[in-house]
């Protein structure tokens, strides 16, 4: 475990009185910090329960981190603690170079999808108490690791953007204050599909996507579903959308393994949506026979 933050003396001889006071203050501060760390460790010994997390580490640039490894951190456990809380604790108390994406800590920004005890989950949404300890935390599989728990998301974004992920319609009312009405039912139909937070957990869990880099993947197909099933776009547009997802690396690649549906933190019925689009595709092809 490499959780030691090094303390080095770098100041040269003080030249002026002001600097010397400055340096004294710095030294005092350093001592105080050393104390703090010691206190933190003592506190740790006093807490009843601690949990160990084993975190994947890798940095292409830093000697000693170029060979991927796992670091273990011991974290004081509190009721309600999430995996993200534990990571933040490890970073702020032991190793400030520990790197991971996070922001909202409420399962809405989609930045902290991680591979936790062998499954794709959002760190902020996963309670420590629901997991077997020690907890193993890794970056999302089937994506390039940039550093520690951060993966390259470009490919995922490209797939999302390849399905024309924006509303297109020729039927807009002319008045600037006139709404384009939508049935409640139709809104219900697309509701689940609109909940996607672009976390890429589904893509990472999908065997097909892992083997076929061009496969659109569950999230992008779900995005296509969101618009194809929105009646406000009209029939022609729907046809156009079906053509996109029907391409060689589209819906037909899906082998209904349900792994995407299982891991989606927003409970989107991804596999079902893909199946429904397959049926739509068959229907629209039949029209031309």
């Amino acid at each position, binding site marked *: 475990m490499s959780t030691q933050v090094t303390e080095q003396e770098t100041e040269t001889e003080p030249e002026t009185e002001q600097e010397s006071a400055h340096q004294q203050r710095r030294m005092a501060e350093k001592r105080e910090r050393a104390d703090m760390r010691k206190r933190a460790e003592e506190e740790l010994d006093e807490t009843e329960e601690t949990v160990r997390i084993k975190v994947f580490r890798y940095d292409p640039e830093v000697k000693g981190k170029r060979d991927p490894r796992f670091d273990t951190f011991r974290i004081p456990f509190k009721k309600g603690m999430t995996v993200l809380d534990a990571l933040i604790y490890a970073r702020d108390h032991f190793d400030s170079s520990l790197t991971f994406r996070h922001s909202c800590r409420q*399962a809405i920004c989609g930045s902290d999808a991680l591979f936790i005890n062998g499954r794709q989950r959002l760190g902020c949404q996963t309670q420590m108490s629901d997991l077997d300890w020690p907890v193993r935390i890794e970056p999302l599989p089937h994506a390039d690791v940039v550093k520690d728990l951060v993966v390259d998301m470009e490919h995922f974004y490209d797939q999302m953007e390849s399905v024309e992920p924006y509303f297109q319609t020729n039927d807009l009312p002319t008045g600037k204050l006139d709404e384009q009405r939508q049935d409640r039912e139709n809104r219900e139909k697309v509701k689940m599909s*609109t909940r996607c937070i672009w976390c890429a957990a589904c893509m990472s869990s999908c065997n097909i996507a892992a083997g076929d880099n061009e496969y659109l993947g569950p999230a992008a197909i779900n995005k296509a579903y969101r618009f194809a099933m929105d009646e406000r776009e009209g029939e022609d547009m729907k046809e156009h959308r079906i053509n996109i997802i029907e391409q060689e690396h589209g819906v037909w690649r899906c082998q209904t393994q349900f792994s995407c549906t299982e891991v989606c933190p927003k409970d989107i019925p991804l596999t079902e949506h893909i199946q429904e689009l397959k049926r739509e595709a068959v229907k629209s092809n039949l029209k031309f026979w």
Partner: protein
Amino acid sequence: MHEHDVIVVGAGGAGLRAAIAAHEAGADVAMVTKLHPVRSHTGAAEGGINAALRDGDDWELHAYDTMKGSDYLGDAPAIETLAQDAPEEVVQLEHWGMPFSREEDGRVSQRPFGGLSFPRTTYAGAETGHHLLHTMYEQVVKRGIQVYDEFYVSRLAVTDHDDPEDRECHGVVAYDIKNGEVVGFRATGGVILATGGDGQVFDHTTNAVANTGDGPAMAYRVGVPVEDMEFVQFHPTTLPSTGVLISEGVRGEGGILYNSEGERFMFEYGYANNAGELASRDVVARAELTEVNNGRGIEDEYVYLDMRHLGEERIYDRLENIIHLAEDFEGVNPVDEPMPVKPGQHYHMGGIETNEHGQTCIDGLYAAGECACASVHGSNRLGGNALPELIVFGARAGHHAAGRDLGEPEVPTGLGAKSEDEDSLDTPVEPGAVAGSDEDVAADGALVEPREVVEHAVETERQRIETLLERDGTNHAEIRADLQKAMTENVNVFRNKEGLQEALEVIRECRERYQDVAVSDPSRTFNTDLIHTIETRNLIDVAETITLGALAREEFRGAHWRQEHQERKDENWLKHTMIAWNDGTPELYYKPVILEGEDKEYEPKVRSY
């Protein structure tokens, strides 16, 4: 160096709308953002977005409610603009495909919200912000607007003219998080700051970890005044361990608050004999903290919010989302147990001073969204009014930066830092004032001619980052933690002179300690240690202005409560607190509130509901 007509910093609701508007006006636009756009905190908004769309409602009513809600500290021209532009903007979102909730007749649904005289809050389930953010990002993709995501903007490239009003902004400096490169972005038209909230100043907030007040801090350091910083909104029901918001809907449906003695304290101790749990946000927040301070809190920290009696069916029907939040983020199942809640920082009414076109006092520098203060919320924001602010003022800033003529602004900006009028107040600046000589605490203004401004700023920033990476010293996390603690203890819901002065002292100590800050991760790849270190500096600046403003305002208005001053004092305080950075010292002065609208004057009345 990258060059574009308009550079938008931040890609939340305000930034996206600004970019689309500038693009529509024909400008070449780029967005520079530290998070990928869909990760922005706008996605967390739940309740809805206000717009007068229906018969029986109109913009004037919306403006009136907003003025009253602001406790008469909003500027009428800005408020009227908000109310006038919101309907068209909201319908446009609908035309862009936003999945709003629908009425039987297929029109967008609206619901009642606190402080509104008409049910004018449009919404998309309990995920309005998520849909708003994604819908606008889709439009950005559609238009092919360039997005530099995971680029951290750390400095504005501004000329160093003596008077801020003479300065010009020519671009920004950003740090490419992926590879550590420091890059210049030159903007020929304008730079729009849309960096969102600054809740991380407190250790308990509904805001995202990325909400660190970067925009206000950067603007402040180049000479733009910040306005009404003392007005911070605290929400009464947030989960203690994370600060995740439990919507007002729970109390709306009949949820009950009680203390460690099992007493329904809102009634038991007379905090709100009529409205009880449904009293306004500030009243409930104060009541909860009083219980805790009087030893009737649970674990000395929180109270209980109970909805078990509503029954499983009703809870699932109307508040399903809350079950997930409480389970996921607090490990509590609210169908079987009461939820622990306490007040948390939620929204910042104050921010970068702008007029109703989004312009600041520096030429070419704009701000919109939560980081800005066009002054529509005054001392208290009404629920559902932040989202229309993003799109209305985002769009206006975008249009103006792209060169569209929006007419003469009515809200003035930029009285400048060096105000000598007698109202100016310097006492709170005393405790532990910082020596102005240190380079790091001086303004960011570049000492060069306009053309070279961006290059110079890039060079300065490169050096600063190099120093941070190479030297040894204090870790920012400790400073940040101390700062957040001091703010939460002393500049929270309850405020008094002593506490505020104490906070100010801690803030000044933090500033001193920050002089020695260093980054221990030596890597150039995705160095979040470095980013957080730079953010911490911004938090210090923002915290100082909040505290100074709170010290100066000796009255009780909106979200700002002072122990020694328990009434609203209209004779002296119908004015905005302005703070500007002046040679290493924050300078405080005032600007009158504009109560005169297009064709009526708003009369301050007692704010009761």
